[in-house]
């Protein structure tokens, strides 16, 4: 089940999960603040994943700027049974990071294809919709509240 604290992410993330057949997905701000998740059962897992994703994105973006002159694009890691796909998408004037974990029920090609549709959906999001989001500027409080909402405790 897809749960979010950002209404403008509900449909795009739900559609991405359904079409790309990924097992786990989380959308977050580059700061690590969670916005939506699918498939996680424990808030502590989401918190840990978001922290790691934010760090990976910051590292690879900086590495890209140093080596490539611009941040690198999507990142894919293949594992024995599961693979991860991590990519940034523009939403209004902001950026949303999407992490998807998938297995052999789908493929990287399929995930990439439907990530394209996800980015197109987010490109339609306006800054006023973004401003209508759950953020107050207090990272810790927002993180705690967002996790509570995502796991039905709020």
């Amino acid at each position, binding site marked *: 089940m897809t749960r979010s604290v950002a209404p403008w992410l509900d449909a795009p993330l739900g559609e991405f999960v359904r079409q790309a057949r990924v097992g786990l997905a989380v959308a977050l701000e580059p700061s690590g603040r969670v916005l939506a998740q699918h498939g996680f059962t424990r808030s502590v897992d989401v918190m840990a994943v978001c922290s790691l994703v934010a760090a990976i994105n910051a590292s690879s973006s900086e590495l890209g700027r140093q080596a490539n002159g611009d941040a690198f694009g999507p990142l894919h890691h*293949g594992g024995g049974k599961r693979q991860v796909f991590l990519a940034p998408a523009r939403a209004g004037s902001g950026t949303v990071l999407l992490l998807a974990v998938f297995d*052999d029920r*789908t*493929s*990287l*090609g*399929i995930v*990439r*294809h439907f990530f394209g549709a996800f980015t197109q959906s987010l490109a339609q999001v306006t800054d006023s919709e973004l401003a209508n989001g759950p953020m107050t500027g207090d990272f810790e409080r927002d993180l705690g509240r967002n996790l509570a909402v995502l796991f039905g405790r709020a």
Partner: protein
Amino acid sequence: MNATLQATLGELAALPGVRAALAATESDGLPAAAVAAVDVDADALAAFATALFHRTRLANAAAGYGETRHLSLDAEHGRLFVVTTGDIALVLLTQPDASAGLLRVALQRALRTVA
């Protein structure tokens, strides 16, 4: 290898009715090389054709039919052919009136060339 692959795909793409010929990795559905009409999305074709073949392979194995060698799909506006060897899949997208027999022979020959 790349020159051979590109030449093989070029020969396949030159057959009557063929709109796209591509090679993709079957496990991740990414195109390795493609010769396609401008309106064909090679990335999407590689992703969906290999996913379809993968599903068909699982279904055939579950049904006890053994290894899947060749997949062909007829639709209202076109035909799709997929063959694999190892992790390489060769995919043809054609017009609906393309000769299935000719294409099948050409695909098997191409598969031996790139294997």
